[in-house]
């Protein structure tokens, strides 16, 4: 029997935002664990706490209470310095609005996470090149975000999220700004990344997107109301990760 290790374990996570004397309890005692190599989508209506959960999972913000183990390491109480290191080494982010650096080439955008490594790898340039080839953008390396289509920009963000070879990819509405064709293309990339063994967590409204995941968590009013295995999940085939450019 194959032993699967836990990638993420959160227990009784609460997140309270305080603003001008008012307190908003966004996450209410959430406990969930994600195995290494799992493919999870988190769905829920607006205001259910999806994005807040993602910021906590991505070590971008800290929970008000509860514990968070990432790869067995308690990250809930780490200092900013260590959280930065974890974000750099273990997590790759993909955003709905792409969040590419404007005016900077696709190549330099993908390179960006590497400049915050303690030591830039000797093969950094080659790695960036390969990451862009992998998402089918070898002919767009010198293009700036303004010169790329939405689908191409999202592929750049995926290449950027992969550049440090993270164990987890966190994607927040990755197809939200794309048409259905480009959305399907992007989801195919996620499927293939998961087939390679990466843990993928996608936050989405879109049922088409959530259907790609092996497991679907539903969030409502800051609580997980459902955690089910997707029966329609089709095991993707690894080794076909290169996106065809059309």
């Amino acid at each position: 029997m194959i032993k699967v290790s836990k990638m993420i374990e959160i227990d009784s996570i609460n997140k309270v935002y305080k603003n001008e004397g008012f307190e908003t309890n966004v996450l209410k005692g959430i406990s969930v664990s994600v195995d290494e190599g799992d493919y999870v989508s988190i769905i829920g209506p607006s205001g259910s706490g999806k994005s807040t959960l993602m910021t906590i999972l991505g070590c971008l913000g800290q929970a008000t209470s509860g514990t968070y183990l990432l790869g067995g390491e308690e990250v809930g109480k780490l200092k900013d310095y260590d959280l930065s290191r974890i974000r750099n080494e273990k997590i790759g982010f993909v955003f709905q609005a792409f969040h590419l650096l404007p005016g900077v080439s696709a190549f330099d955008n993908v390179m960006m996470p590497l400049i915050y490594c303690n030591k830039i790898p000797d093969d950094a340039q080659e790695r960036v090149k390969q990451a862009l080839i992998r998402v089918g953008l070898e002919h767009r390396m010198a293009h700036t975000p303004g010169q790329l289509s939405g689908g191409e920009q999202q592929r750049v963000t995926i290449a950027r999220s992969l550049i440090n070879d993270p164990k987890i990819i966190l994607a927040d509405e990755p197809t939200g700004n794309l048409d259905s064709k480009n959305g399907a293309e992007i989801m195919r990339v996620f499927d293939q990344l998961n087939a390679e063994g990466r843990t993928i967590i996608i936050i989405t409204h879109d049922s088409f997107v959530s259907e790609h995941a092996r497991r679907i968590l539903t969030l409502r009013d800051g609580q997980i109301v459902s955690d089910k295995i997707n029966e329609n999940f089709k095991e993707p085939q690894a080794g076909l990760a290169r996106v065809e450019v059309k």
Partner: protein
Amino acid sequence: MRILRNLRQALHGLKLNKGNTFLMTLGVMIGIASLTVIVAIGEGTKSTVLERIANMGFGPESFSVYSGGGRLFFGRNRNITSMTLQDADDIRAMPGVAIVVPRQRKRMRIINKKEFTTTRVYGVSPEWQPARQWKVVDGEFFNDMDMDRKRKVIVLGNTPARKIFGEKDPLGKKIRVGQVFFEVIGLLETKGLTESGYDPDDRALIPLTTAMSRLFRQAHLHSIKVVSTSSDIVRQTMEGVTQVLRRNHGLSPLADDDFRFVTPEGIMQWVTESEQALNRMLLLISTVSLLVGGVVIMNILLVSIRERIREIGVRRCFGARRTDITQQFLFESVLVSLLGGAMGSVVGWVLSSSLKYFDFLPVKITLDPFVLAFGFSMVVGLIFGIHPARKAASLSPDETIR
């Protein structure tokens, strides 16, 4: 090295935000340009004063005593008429006094037919020439006989001679000074314009007695130049002169002197004091202008951070530490400040050179303000960049990425 990578990101940042970079540069540029121009004017003024002192013909053994109390060139009362030829004679009789030159002076128009110019006309004794060690290149200087006979003879400096005679030989010609005709008997050696534009050749000399009785029609002297036998006894001589003049002018022990000394030492001290005051003023102006430049940088950087909040968030998402963000924005501030400093230096140099070229103001361009500009702009960048940089770094990644 991580710090160099952040420097590179700062360069990228400046390149990408050209508008803000330009505005930030402009603030420092104006500050540094004004600093360099003001320093150049200050240096030029100082240089002018020093050259004028040099052109007064002072040696270490000489000094002048001017009519009217006060200090140096700043007489308390210009209408004092107490200094007379008797004073000059009494000073001449003192031990340790080598040369005494009593003087009168007035700015007057001199005319040769239709040509005229205004120049400084001095009534002096023949000792003026050895005291100033100023050669006569054509003709001769007036002598004691000219003095005794109150002859209407004049020795011209090069400037008035050229202006009213052109290329013609002025020797033996008659010119009119005021309403009195004089014969030109000599031409002074040309000294040439000083760097600051002062013209020592712009003068004409007549016998003192002629000046007193025929031209200026006044008995009192403007000043007396005294040359001691040795520089060691200048102070003693001055004390002696004080006694003579106070006695001759009938001053009571409680009364202030109605004359004042002008010595090379005194002038130097005055120049030093003036320079210090000028430097304090320069420092104040420069500080204010640089503070303005610094505040401009700070405000624009703060606005820029607001505009670039997503960029900061993305960098933080992908592993940038607070120190990375601090360094990046601090580098941007320092780089923009240095760029402003460099541009300000160029603008300052061009403006200073123009002032000099068009002869608006005495200007002396030295390297010092440009070295200072480099240091100042770096300090301004650092000081005014700290707050925005820390503010950018303090932003929480989850808030910046939303």
